């Protein structure tokens, strides 16, 4: 499997990965601070309650969790994968029950409150799925060729998908698809299955979009209003039925403008940053409240960075993520067995999808889905799951030569 035999002095830690992660976390702390400093509220919270400090605490907790992941050989984790998977599914189910799940004042029921902190099980469902799928797919090659295995794997994805979709958290649900597909592909499942799946999924999505964008209201699939709007905004539609009066049309247009507001403002932030940016904490979009304070430090943290550090800053962020992702792929290549390989690949797929969708959303390449940018967006669950994911890589890297 390896071109060069491992030597005794081989590193225990992938230093390029670690330094890229450290760089990202540093940027994250600084720009969460910048994004929350300009808030309009006249009384800023005490220093120990500041978002950037909380973020740093989450980083520390996340690194601790990542280290804990590395304590045990990933094969041991894999043995427990089904337990973890079903436990997560249970949590996902529990979130949907009003008494247990919390909305945190938003429309969607995504959080489980644990004392003062809330966590989102959907963030961990991704990891659980990666673990379970890697375990499931590391079976003899000829077994992978059977359609049964393929459909079982799809089934393993569908269960959390439906539950997360129900929350509703469309972004987190959709992200399970590329993770699963990538893992299936790398595991060596026959191409025709995957092609068929991609083909049918493509047709389904196309039908869905046509339905949402063009069908009369009574024929449309029930989506949450905001989800439908986000899609309409992305496709530049005003969503007015054909027979609407001019007044209705105008009202719908106005509403549409309100809904596209976040994206428009994110674009202005990113675009006005120019090449060199306006300087840390000098971005006006966020400080003056044009970029809504509710999203500036989490979903739209990238536009804050892009505004304040310009194209150069964006390139630095992308470069750091590239280092992280390619380290992940290299770790996958160095893994001792298919289990390790698939684990690393699943994490690569997960992180890459987040980065691509989130950054793409900031420059209107992607519709708004509410996916966080790993490590940079403010939020405990996202930071924790991202760091645990890199912990998995580290685990695979660490035990690569123990055969």
């Amino acid at each position, binding site marked *: 499997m390896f071109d060069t035999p491992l030597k005794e002095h081989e590193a225990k830690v992938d230093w390029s990965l670690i330094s890229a992660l450290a760089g990202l976390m540093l940027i994250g702390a600084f720009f969460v601070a910048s994004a929350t400093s300009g808030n309009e509220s006249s009384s800023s919270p005490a220093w120990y309650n500041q978002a950037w400090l909380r973020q740093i605490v989450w980083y520390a907790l996340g690194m601790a969790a990542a280290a804990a992941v590395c304590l045990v050989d990933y094969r041991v984790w894999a043995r427990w994968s089904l337990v973890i998977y079903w436990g997560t599914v249970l949590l996902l189910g529990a979130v949907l029950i009003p008494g247990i799940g919390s909305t945190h004042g938003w429309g969607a029921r995504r959080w489980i409150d644990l004392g003062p902190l809330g966590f989102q099980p959907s963030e961990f469902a991704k990891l659980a799925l990666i673990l379970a799928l890697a375990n499931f797919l590391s079976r003899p090659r000829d077994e992978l060729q059977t359609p049964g295995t393929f459909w079982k794997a799809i089934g393993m994805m569908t269960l959390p998908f439906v539950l997360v979709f129900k929350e509703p958290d469309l972004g987190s649900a959709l992200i399970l698809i590329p993770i699963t597909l990538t893992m299936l592909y790398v595991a060596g499942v026959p191409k025709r299955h995957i092609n068929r799946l991609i083909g049918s999924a493509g047709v389904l999505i196309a039908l869905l979009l046509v339905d949402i964008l063009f069908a009369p209201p009574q024929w449309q699939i029930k989506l949450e209003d905001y989800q439908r709007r986000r899609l309409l905004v992305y496709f530049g539609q005003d969503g007015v039925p054909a027979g609407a009066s001019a007044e209705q049309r105008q009202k719908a247009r106005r509403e549409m403008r309100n809904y596209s507001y976040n994206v428009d403002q994110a674009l202005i932030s990113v675009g006005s940053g120019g090449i060199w940016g306006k300087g840390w904490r000098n971005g006006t979009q966020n400080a003056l409240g044009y970029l809504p304070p509710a999203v500036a430090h989490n979903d739209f943290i990238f536009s804050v960075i892009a505004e304040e550090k310009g*194209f150069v800053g964006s390139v630095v962020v992308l470069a750091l993520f590239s280092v992280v992702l390619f380290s992940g792929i290299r770790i996958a290549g160095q893994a001792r067995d298919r289990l390790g390989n698939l684990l690393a690949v699943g994490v690569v797929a997960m992180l890459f999808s987040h980065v691509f969708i989130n950054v793409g959303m900031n420059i209107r390449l992607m519709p708004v889905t509410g996916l966080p940018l790993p490590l940079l967006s403010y939020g405990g669950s996202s930071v924790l799951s991202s760091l645990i994911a890199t912990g998995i890589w580290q685990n695979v890297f660490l035990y690569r030569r123990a055969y």
Partner: protein
Amino acid sequence: MMIFDQLKKNEPHLRVLTVSVLAGMLVLLAGLWWVQVISCRHYSENLRAQAFRTVRIPAIRGKILDRNGGVLAENQPQYVLGLYLDELRDRFQAEWARSRPRVTVTNRLPAWKRWLGFNPVSTVRVKLSKQEYMAHAAQTRYRAVSNLVHGLSRSLNQPLAVSYGEFVSHYTEQLALPLPLTNCDHRIMARFFEQTSSPRGLDLDVHPQRSYPHGPTAAHVLGFLVRDNRSASDELAFFNYRLPDYRGRVGIEGLYDGHLRGKAGVKSVLVNSLGYRQSEQIWSEAEPGLNVVLTLDLIIQKAAEDALRSRGPDARGAAVVMEVRTGNLLALASVPAFDPNVFTQGVSHDYMNWLNTPKLRPQINRTMQENYAPGSIFKIAIALACLEAGIDPRQKIYHPGYIYVGRRQIDDLAPAGEYDFHRGFIHSSNAYFVTNGLRAGIERIVRIGQKLHLGQRTGLLPGQETPGYLPGLNEIRTGWIPGDTANICMGQGRLSVTPLQMAVMTAAIANGGKVLWPRLVDRIEPQRLHTPDQVERYPVRPPRDTLGVSPRTLALVREAMRADVEDEGGTGRLAFVPGLRVCGKTGTAQITNARNELVGNTLWFTSFAPFEQPRYAVLIMVETETGGYGGMVCAPMAKKIYETILELERQQGAVLARTP
């Protein structure tokens, strides 16, 4: 390299994965390049459009000064007490928290909860629809402002009020600017500064207000301003907000508006997403306008106006005081005159009615905006024509008290008797001048008129000037009868002039035959003078024309004019000033209506002084309906002006108008 390591390895799946991730990253990179580098300008403009409000700041208008630096028009700071609403957001929030609608509800609690001590009665906030919310928020803000203004009104002891409509329109349209509460006089300012704790957000704004410290003095020359916030052609065309500005309408204010108004500055106000002011920055400072320095002398101007007004408040007339060597105007007075201050402060209804009184017409500049029959003062020009035609001034004509021209009998004020040129001139004998004028011929008279540029504008104040009327050579060659010539010899008939033209004529007699351009603007200079080359001078122009008459003729006319004032029996005796030899000519023209009825008189006195070396020309014109004579009414006015000039010369120890 990490990426290429992957590609070299013989693992097709991972290689595909590497390429996919790389491609994804490159797509993002390209997108970012497009947004941040290529379209940067577009998005920066969007940012500016949504976050900056530009405010036009009018420049400080230049002053208008008299020749000695006396102020004719200047700017007074006007203090406006304004309220910055962005500083009141704490109050808005407090008021909102206090007044947010709540209801008290009684919850149906289960028995065990009640047993545990939960209170079933609680106060909850009423859920508001978006419209209700907006309406309530607007009311709340207004209440907060209204309370503050009420408190302020008590502490300043000055009734202040902001109506809901005013407030809402200010809030929606001009949020980035302060809400103006009141104009401050010294009393309010003193109270405002005495207060140790005035509420946040209050500030005094200074607006320059045009002021004409001498009221109606020289009003027609100065002109007035009208409200006009528009951009001049060399400025930014678009502004979000414009502070009040004015534009000169007529007179010097209108004519030199481009110099006086300066260049407006631009202030930009950074506003947040709610439209509240965040910070301000001056993008370009306003450049103050230039001062216009006139040739007028404020003291002589006032003396001339006072002299005209000595006939009463409804006196109508004009006075021109000119330096005969240069054409510099020392006074250009027209009564009745308006007060230019009222146009910037708001014209009352009564004042507007007064301005439109058909008989008074205060807005008319009588020195050059009206046509008048010159009457007997035109005999100066007739005298030039006769003497140049070779008529002997010593030749006597018997005059019976009237003459016939054709079948028309013309009465004469001069007593019957023998008249030579000298006697005919000082008694203003119609018989003498008609007889000799007919002898000299109308063509000579018209040519003299053309040399004097009668029937032509001087271009001194465009829009305020009429050319008058002088018959052309073609007109006198066809259908012209001797009666027409006779009328012109008496300064009546198909001839009309402006007082300014008559002053130019008098100056030409006095200065040896040079027909001058009247001159009003001496120079234009910056408000703060640093180097002399910043001054734009308007030098004395070379004479417009020369009369082309012999020195003997001029000397004869000058001598006759001296005699008219100094000799026994002269009509201008009342203009005699001890210590200054005044030379003059009186005139009384009759104004008839369409049915040839006498409806009024135009009384004239034109003069120059001193006889030996003439320096000043003074012309007085008065309109009456009740008769009177130029020698009786106008000559004493001229005398007052000469006395003022003498007094000034004595004070300054030098002559005002230097003789070259």
